[in-house]
């Protein structure tokens, strides 16, 4: 009833090229950002920020990065965790070796290192596709896991590759309490979400999608497959690397290579499949689903006062979580983003039938 476009006429192409074309959408998004920036840091508890919102934001960012590669360019990658690790370790190394570098630059440079590594491991994509490419990115995961564990120079000779960051500050402002870290992550997520959206709605994104949908036709139109695939790898690894650096610096504080294992790669892949391949907003939905659902499942039995032992609760959680993913993928293979857009289409007409 309130979600109407009546009277909203687009009189110029600038208006038609907006990300949020409906006025209500723009208002809602601005309100959401305002709440996230102003109200959440004031109201949310330390636990909520540290254990839920910060991981959610950082994993959303990683999911956006992976979605560019898998969802938009159609190149399956199982090495996301490794690219996150490259971002985290590179940023950490820069901080340790050149302490003068500010945190922001450290993280962005970490992202650039991940870009370089991502492009190198993206080269097989010029010859391989589908499952074979997935296996070759799996090699990236195993190789980098091994590298951070076994090459002492990469971790400044610390035992078993575990490293920790000291006190953080952002251009003189301290980054200690949960809300400060939260806002820092939020800034990254908002900026990179806008950048990602801009990329996928312009020529760059159209080239990626053309390669994904029909690479021979893309070549005949004049798209260079190598360029399109490698830019997708580069942009994707950059964002993933930045999110890895944030994960290490903001969320973990101290970590070892295991934090970025194959499990992480699969977790991110699940996020974008559940959230919606080829959708920026879907990356957020997927991250929310994967981060929030286990927390909800842990707390539900307690709400009903069910006396479950801890073991049983954990097992139940796994069972329900797994079956939900399966059911969900059968019911809606295009993910939460598709449900979201169907819902909006319906809402445009509601309460009228047409």
């Amino acid at each position, binding site marked *: 009833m309130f979600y109407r476009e009546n009277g909203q006429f687009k009189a110029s*192409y*600038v208006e*038609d*090229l907006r990300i949020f074309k409906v006025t209500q959408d723009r208002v809602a998004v601005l309100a959401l950002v305002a709440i996230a920036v102003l109200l959440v840091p004031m109201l949310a508890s330390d636990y909520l920020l540290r254990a839920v919102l910060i991981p959610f934001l950082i994993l959303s960012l990683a999911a956006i990065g992976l979605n560019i590669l898998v969802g938009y360019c159609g190149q399956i990658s199982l090495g996301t965790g490794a690219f996150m690790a490259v971002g985290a370790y590179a940023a950490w190394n820069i901080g340790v070796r050149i302490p003068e570098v500010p945190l922001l630059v450290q993280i962005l440079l970490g992202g650039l290192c991940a870009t370089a590594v991502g492009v190198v491991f993206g080269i097989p994509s010029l010859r391989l596709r589908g499952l074979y490419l997935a296996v070759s990115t799996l090699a990236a995961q195993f190789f980098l896991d091994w590298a951070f564990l076994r090459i002492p120079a990469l971790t400044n000779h610390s035992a078993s590759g575990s490293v920790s960051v000291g006190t953080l500050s952002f251009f003189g402002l301290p980054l200690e309490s949960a809300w400060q870290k939260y806002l820092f992550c939020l800034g990254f997520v908002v900026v990179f979400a806008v*950048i990602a959206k*801009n*990329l996928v*709605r*312009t*020529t*760059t*994104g*159209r*080239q990626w*999608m*053309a390669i*994904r*949908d*029909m690479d*021979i*036709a*893309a*070549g*005949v*139109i*004049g*798209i*260079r497959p190598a360029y399109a695939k490698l*830019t997708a790898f580069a*942009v994707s690894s950059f964002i993933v690397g930045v999110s890895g650096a944030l994960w290490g610096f903001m969320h973990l504080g101290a970590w070892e290579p295991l934090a970025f294992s194959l499990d992480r790669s699969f977790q991110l892949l699940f996020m974008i499949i559940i959230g919606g391949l*080829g959708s920026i907003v879907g990356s957020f939905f997927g991250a929310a689903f994967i981060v929030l659902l286990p927390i909800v499942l842990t707390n539900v039995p307690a709400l009903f006062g069910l006396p479950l032992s801890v073991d049983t609760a954990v097992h139940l959680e796994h069972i329900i979580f797994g079956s939900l993913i399966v059911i969900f993928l059968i019911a809606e293979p295009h993910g939460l983003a598709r449900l979201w857009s169907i819902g909006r289409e319906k809402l445009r007409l509601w309460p009228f039938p047409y």
Partner: protein
Amino acid sequence: MNMTDINSATVTAPARGQGEVILDLQNISLRFGGVKALTDISFNVREHEIRSIIGPNGAGKSSMLNVINGVYHPQEGRIHFRGEERRKMEPQVAAAQGIARTFQNIALFKGMSVLDNIMTGRNLKMKCNLFQHALFWGRAQKEEIEHRIKVEEVIDFLEIQGIRHTPVGRLPYGLQKRVELGRALAAEPELLLLDEPMAGMNVEEKQDMCRFILDVNDQFGTTIVLIEHDMGVVMDISDRVVVLDYGRKIGDGAPDEVKNNPDVIAAYLGTSH
């Protein structure tokens, strides 16, 4: 080629079938292992004409188009486009030189909207880089709008305004063929290769498609190489026709000549021995 008003166009274009030779193929042979797809084929295409390639199934028609736009590389033969000899060339280079095409089995980008598909056709003309796209401010936005205007002209021309935001996977077959033509037209090609643009269409859709092909040829002066099985259509709209059979050329000339060529009749109807 300009996308201009119908009244102001076509004045300077040469009469059909009498223009300069813009594409010249000499002694083309193409083999896949032991299979000879094309054997010693020579023909040329003149500026601003509609040149049809016909022949029974498996005659090598689509292979011929693939040779012209660089998807296949013939083992023997020479290709001159606009007077320059082409060496082994990739499809991207052919596209940059002004050769666009449509495919026999629709090769649209199924996950993208009609608008995005046709915008993709202009990608060679868009010069902004990744970083400008990322910010989408100033030049990138200006460029996007400039090309959007051109694409809207193509959309108007093909009368598909109502479906511009529909994902192409959801469109019926006839409209998908039209969108594919739109994507090729968006590149403003000099030479347009159409691989069975009317296959699987009903009479009305065929008439529409014929009209579009003739209009493209008339208004924009685009040279067209056409593969088609509907002989009525081919004989009506072509200036000259090449006939292939088992990878060899068995006829070449104006539609009337070709129609009465005994070899062609034999290839299509068989002969009594």
